[in-house]
């Protein structure tokens, strides 16, 4: 139920690749991995790894925050929270009665909402009355709720790591369990994915707003990243915060969440991977029995919006009582681009370990930064994302110095080739990282589901190594010259200014307005 805020998570994905050693090659995985596409379109993957009597699953829904409807940012994440609220069979004392009560909640909320949003002629008395009706309707529906029964059943049955995350590109649900609970899990998972009930929606909406306050409003880096992405994108939803703008997340409705589910949680949009002490021959029929029952639906139409080429450098300067920080990003193509592995190569050589260029230049030699890294595919890579670079200045050094030093390093990519040692290190590391990732159920389930979704075949997890190995020095130089140009850049920085006492009234109306300033300059 956490929002995938992970730059690290985004980074990790592209780099893990394959190699053939011992029993850990593609051929060995072919023998113990079974894929089945059900008649309703849902894809099941079972991978046998009988090291201990446990299993992990990873349910990947190919829709994320980028699919939030206009005016309802945060909805994908809100729905992810709701997927823990149970179904018609779980979490209720009497679903038929509850269903009627929940319908009344929606009617009452719609009436309240209509009055609340009135721009002219809003009646405070009527608003209060409608609010009361809405609250009474919620209380009436609450009578039937067994709160958190879904998660309780999982916990009592030994589930660990119960969680979910919503990224821009996809939404995922996962936990691990003793292997004798496989059927129980299949029941639970098929219930919440296929038949969720939007109960306690408006209370959970408050919880999600607290999540926004924690991750964005009250966190300096969170605030900065929100402004950074909003500046970098003019059309594509990658420019909106995944947790949602406050005004929108505070006004979404259970009806909207149900509609989001109906549209995007269709079986053809979902891959479920199970890894561990399971035998495909026995497990697959059990899984089918439960997941088969989810009604089929049309696969959602692909998004029309494509971010137009950036024509002017943009920058965000936040002046506040926070220590300085600098980040910049350049638009790059999505993960299907033939140069995808080249971006991974640049990120790896730029950032990975103490041999990385940014560490050696900014941290070790120039002694101006505590930390400096680049990463690719931010905030996602299903659609064109950013290649971003950030640096944390040492005390006494400025964001401007970070920017200059980063630009010098970017010019190196454009003006000269990487060394043989650098390129080789990237390729060696990619192989080793893939191998290291094969030794745990959670990671494997994640990888298999992800690659199956992205490429239509989990085998790409191993085959991607061929593309990694094909990356050449010339590719790197060509790609660097293509994207690291001024007009393709958006930057954000925090400049420290001592705390000024703000007036109480100003603080009330806008609790955390960082003094942000957006400049749009001409193309250079």
């Amino acid at each position: 139920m956490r929002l995938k805020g992970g730059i690290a998570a985004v980074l990790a994905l592209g780099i893990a690749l394959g190699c053939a050693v011992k029993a850990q090659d593609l051929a060995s995985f072919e023998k113990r991995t079974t894929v089945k596409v059900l008649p309703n379109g849902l894809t099941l993957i079972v991978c046998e790894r009988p090291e201990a009597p446990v299993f992990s699953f990873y349910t990947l829904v190919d829709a994320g925050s980028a699919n939030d409807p206009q005016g309802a940012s945060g909805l994908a994440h809100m729905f992810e929270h709701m997927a823990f609220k149970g179904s018609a069979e779980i979490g209720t004392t009497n679903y038929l009665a509850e269903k009627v009560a929940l319908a009344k909640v929606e009617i009452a909320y719609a009436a309240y909402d209509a009055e609340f949003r009135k721009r002219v002629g809003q009646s405070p008395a009527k608003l209060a009355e409608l609010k009361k009706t809405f609250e009474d309707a919620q209380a009436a529906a609450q009578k039937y709720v067994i709160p958190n029964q879904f998660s309780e059943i999982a916990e009592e049955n030994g589930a660990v790591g119960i969680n979910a995350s919503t990224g821009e590109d996809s939404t995922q649900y996962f936990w691990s369990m003793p292997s004798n609970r496989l059927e129980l899990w299949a029941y639970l998972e098929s219930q919440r994915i296929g038949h969720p009930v939007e109960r306690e929606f408006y209370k959970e909406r408050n919880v999600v707003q607290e999540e926004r306050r924690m991750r964005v409003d009250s966190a300096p880096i969170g605030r900065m990243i929100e402004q950074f992405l909003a500046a970098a994108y003019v059309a594509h939803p990658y420019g909106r915060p995944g947790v949602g703008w406050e005004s929108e997340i505070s006004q979404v409705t259970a009806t909207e969440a149900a509609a989001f589910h109906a549209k995007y949680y269709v079986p053809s949009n979902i891959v479920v991977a199970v890894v561990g002490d399971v035998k495909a021959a026995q497990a697959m029929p059990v899984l089918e029995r439960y997941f088969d029952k989810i009604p089929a639906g049309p696969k959602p139409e692909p998004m029309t919006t494509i971010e137009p080429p950036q024509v002017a450098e943009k920058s965000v300067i936040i002046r506040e009582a926070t220590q300085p920080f600098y980040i910049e990003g350049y638009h790059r193509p999505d993960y299907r681009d033939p140069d995808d592995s080249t971006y991974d190569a640049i990120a790896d050589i730029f950032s990975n370990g103490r041999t990385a260029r940014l560490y050696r230049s900014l941290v070790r030699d120039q002694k101006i930064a505590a930390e400096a890294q680049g990463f690719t595919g931010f905030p996602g890579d299903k659609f064109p994302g950013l290649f971003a670079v950030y640096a944390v200045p040492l005390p006494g050094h400025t964001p401007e110095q970070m920017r200059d030093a980063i630009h010098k390093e970017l010019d190196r990519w454009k003006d000269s080739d990487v060394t043989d040692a650098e390129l080789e290190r990237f390729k060696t590391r990619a192989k080793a990282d893939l191998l290291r990732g094969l030794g745990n159920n959670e990671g494997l389930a994640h990888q298999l589901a992800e690659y199956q979704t992205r490429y239509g075949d989990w085998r790409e997890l191993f085959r991607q190594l061929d593309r990694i190995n094909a990356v050449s020095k010339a590719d790197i130089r060509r790609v660097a010259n293509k994207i690291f140009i001024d007009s393709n850049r958006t930057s954000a920085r925090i400049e420290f200014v001592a705390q000024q006492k703000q007036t109480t009234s100003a603080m009330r109306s806008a609790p955390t307005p960082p003094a942000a300033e957006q400049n749009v300059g001409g193309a250079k």
Partner: protein
Amino acid sequence: MKRISTMRIAATMAPVLLATLSVSAQSTAVKPANSTKPAAVQPWKKIVIPPLHAFKPAQPRRIELANGLVIFLQEDHELPFINGSILIRGGSRDEPAAKAGLVTMYGQTWRTSGTATENGDQLDDQMEAKAAQIETAGSVASTSVRWSSLKGDFDTVFAATVDVLLHPTFRADKLQLARRQMETAISRRNDDPGDISIREAIKLAYGADNPYARQPEYATVDAVTLEDLKAWHDRTVVPNNMIVAVSGDFNGASMEATLRKAFEPLARGEELKTAAIRFTDPKPGIHFAEKADVNQSNVLIVGLGTERSNPDYYALSVMNEVFSGGFGSRVVQNVRTKLGLAYEVGGAFGASYDHPGIFYVQAATKSATTVAATQALDAEIARLKTEPPTASELSKAKDQVLNSFIFHYDSPDKVLNEQVMLAFYGYPSDFLDKYKAGIEKVTSADVARVANKYVDQSKLATIVVGNEAEIAPKLDVLGKVTNLDITIPPPPAGAKE
């Protein structure tokens, strides 16, 4: 750019109880009083749960050398890697207060400096070309050297590891690099409200000068010299202070021979003993730190916890599950799900291996509900003493611990790490078995007894980090408010640049 973890307080504040490592950020139910009748069907109850496949995890082989060095070997042939660690007694709790930060800087400078044969930068080149790692680190109770490589590279990587362990040359430029990074962290420590609240909570629970709570300052990191690092190395790197653990794709007999050859020649030294550390309970009251640029308050209520060796550890573990162990726990159920007051909420009566853990309850809530959330947390603490777990709460809590017990030892690395920690802190190797048996015996009366014995609201302090202008009603309705001074002391004149 670090990912915020919901478990950040658990991670920061001393090891949480074994069993509560799972969830802290979700929610569930004491069955609501108004639920008129039980759920109609409950189809999941009809699903047959077959017996779990028999599974006996391989235990690591323990070898003790004549010089006191302890070795654990855990063969694991699934992947072609060999990983090792050398855990060395002595950590930041043992460093002089005037040099707080020494062990962290030592842990970094050790590896980045390298050895007489290969400096740190050369080592970086060599290791990363093999996708291998050798890293050193400083921690609260120990320092460590860890390595990892493909098994084909083991000989060279292990030789380099032993060279780092025994023949480091601490270099001035790398110490300065470490110092500047410490200074960066110090300068930034008031940027994030969550970080502030955790830091101040630990200081209140343990006492600001307690070795588990004290903070590096510009002056203390400035005071650390190359000689300090060398002296720390000489004092701690002796075989009877070390535990070596190796896991991966190797032959046990030949690995034993390799390790004996490397470590048997080392001469026994003086064992490091941690000086007695005094713990006093915090004083009740509200401690407030202002953060004008936030719209959410971080609320923490803290006191002293216990040690795992306490015979009441089992009952306290079950109490933790009932209190805040997951979706079904009281705190999550009420503060998050029922009241919708927080996304991040949790707590535990913490137990460490060899010193009291921290009892904490926390929530992050919008400024306007600061008082309401604090009162809700207080009420849950009080309820621990007045309302013993119901039969349903007890069975849920125990099921949660026992049915997930397999996850304590479902991989060879987990089994190995468990044995290393037990050996390091002098616990019996069958601690986990005893823990399981202990949990099975816990009754509701046991939980009520330990709640009344250990939870004392007159020994708990409350910390709030938030935006005072937005907090209404004011905090003083909760009691006397003391303003915390979190100003960062400036660097001393003439600090090393």
